[in-house]
């Protein structure tokens, strides 16, 4: 990635600043904004508040040779790398699904040498987004000195001009395109996020193009009633798509919990490469849209269960657990 901030300024100088409606469909947004060879960054935290519908559409439209920012990439990595859309990756965390296990399909991709890697840490990638968001070519950090991770990165050791201590300079990261799932957005792309931000405030500002998928479209008045809540302002946004349950099978804070049964299904089917291809065909490639995927996975009944799990209503209602 090119940390040239003057080039970036020229790009942002041309960026559309008009307060105009940007609502579109997932296929149109991906067709227009995600191209073969692009460097892609995904918001949320792996299987928490992720833009699943947009990721599926990238697979469905057969994008290839993508670069991926592997900032806590778990189910998002499983989709994009597992399906073979990626040929290079800035790794902080990949192939794992935290406590759940490892994605065999994405592991095969890395072990086959098909993916060129650089190694980073979560903080390094978060601060690389921040440097880009600030419009500076790098940020200094004290983490990672002496590690092999940073030897395999593009970080450079520098000396502090004030105190003389050693620091690592991590270069600004301006992704070609980012996709972030939020709780609510207006038609212009002003967004509210409930719960942790992860790195999405900085990512939204660092990205050259940004697709917002939102649980709900809300009137502009909702945004204006409490502007302190605006995590992402409209001028960072190129497309807004409304996708209820859009983080499924991931968790969406205060809305629905992750579908652990379905995520386990992914992990199990990946043991066999051919079976996984059939699985991708069934659940993504031959599925017309994300609604059809939700139907395949149990539809509104299942989603209602996940909602009760998230809100911990089972004890009150007397039903069984969902996750």
């Amino acid at each position, binding site marked *: 990635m090119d940390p040239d901030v003057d080039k970036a300024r020229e790009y942002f100088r041309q960026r559309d600043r008009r307060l105009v409606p940007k609502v579109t469909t997932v296929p149109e947004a991906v067709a227009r904004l995600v191209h073969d060879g692009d460097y892609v960054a995904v918001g949320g935290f792996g299987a928490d508040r992720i833009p699943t519908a947009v990721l599926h559409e990238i697979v469905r439209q057969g994008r290839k040779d993508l670069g991926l920012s592997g900032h806590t990439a778990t189910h998002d990595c499983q989709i994009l790398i597992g399906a073979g859309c990626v040929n290079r990756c800035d790794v902080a965390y990949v192939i794992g699904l935290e406590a759940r296990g490892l994605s065999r399909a994405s592991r095969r991709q890395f072990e086959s040498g098909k993916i060129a890697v650089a190694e980073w840490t979560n903080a390094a990638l978060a601060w690389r987004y921040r440097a880009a968001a600030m419009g500076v070519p790098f940020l200094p950090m004290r983490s990672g000195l002496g590690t092999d991770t940073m030897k395999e990165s593009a970080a450079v050791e520098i000396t502090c001009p004030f105190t003389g201590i050693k*620091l690592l300079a991590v270069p600004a990261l301006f992704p070609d395109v980012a996709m972030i799932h939020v709780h609510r957005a207006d038609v212009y792309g002003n967004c509210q996020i409930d719960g942790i931000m992860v790195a999405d405030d900085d990512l939204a500002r660092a990205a050259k193009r940004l697709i917002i998928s939102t649980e709900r479209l809300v009137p502009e008045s909702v945004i204006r009633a409490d502007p302190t809540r605006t995590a992402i302002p409209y001028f960072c946004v190129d497309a807004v798509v409304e996708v209820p349950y859009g983080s499924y099978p991931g968790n969406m804070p205060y809305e629905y919990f992750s579908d652990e049964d379905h995520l386990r299904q992914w992990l199990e089917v990946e043991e066999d490469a051919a079976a996984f291809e059939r699985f991708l065909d069934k659940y993504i490639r031959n599925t017309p849209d994300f609604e059809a995927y939700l139907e395949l996975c149990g539809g509104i009944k299942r989603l209602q269960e996940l909602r009760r799990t998230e809100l911990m209503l089972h004890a009150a209602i007397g039903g069984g657990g969902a996750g």
Partner: protein
Amino acid sequence: MSAPAYNRMELMICLASRYLEDDRTAVVGTGAPCAAAMLAQKTSAPNLMVMFEAGGVGPILPTMPISVGDSRTFFRGLAASSMADIMSSCQRGMVDYTFLGGAQIDMYGNINSTMIGGDIQRPKVRLPGSGGAGDLASLCWRTMMITPQDKRRFVPRVDFITSPGYLDGAGAREAAGLPPGTGPYKVITDLCVIGFDEVTKRMRVESVHPGVTREQVQENTGFELLWAPDVKESAPPTSEELRILRDEVDSLRYIIGRG
């Protein structure tokens, strides 16, 4: 009265929890570290502040989180912030403890969670990578591990330093530029509790678990361990610790069921 029965995971969690002092801060992951922190909060460290790397601060954990970014990590929390905010707190010196794990660990407490093999572009076994681990090991004051102990895991030299321990010995962290006074603190295994020798920064056994011999500990280690002059027997879980762990911390037995 006979001593209560417990499994190895319960023992490790109880031992780890006792090292967490009250009124301190800890960044924890899912699994055993989270259980240790929750147990500490319900026993000796009621004011231990727990944080998660994705932004959760001070939750009242209703159940074990599945992800360090899931909604449980800020359930009724004091703050729901960001990765940059938590990592900045670590870098500023506000975080006392963290827990890490990995596929390999060496005598200086360096941890590998990136790959087995010699070529990062074509690893023999690809592992997830640093995540936040390399940052936490660099920046938190005291790094702890809860891990099974065997020769495959406790190796003379890790294939890849993901999370810095004492690198290649005394003074190496400081020479590399890592914040002074930080580093590995305790390694809690299924056989013993290991600290680090103050002079050499090498692993030094402090206590051996009930029923385990010194020979077993050394046989399950791929390098020569140092021994504290007063190696004790690790104090087993009390019945009160076990009650809280089983009934309140991990009532669904997600973690302790693996023991």
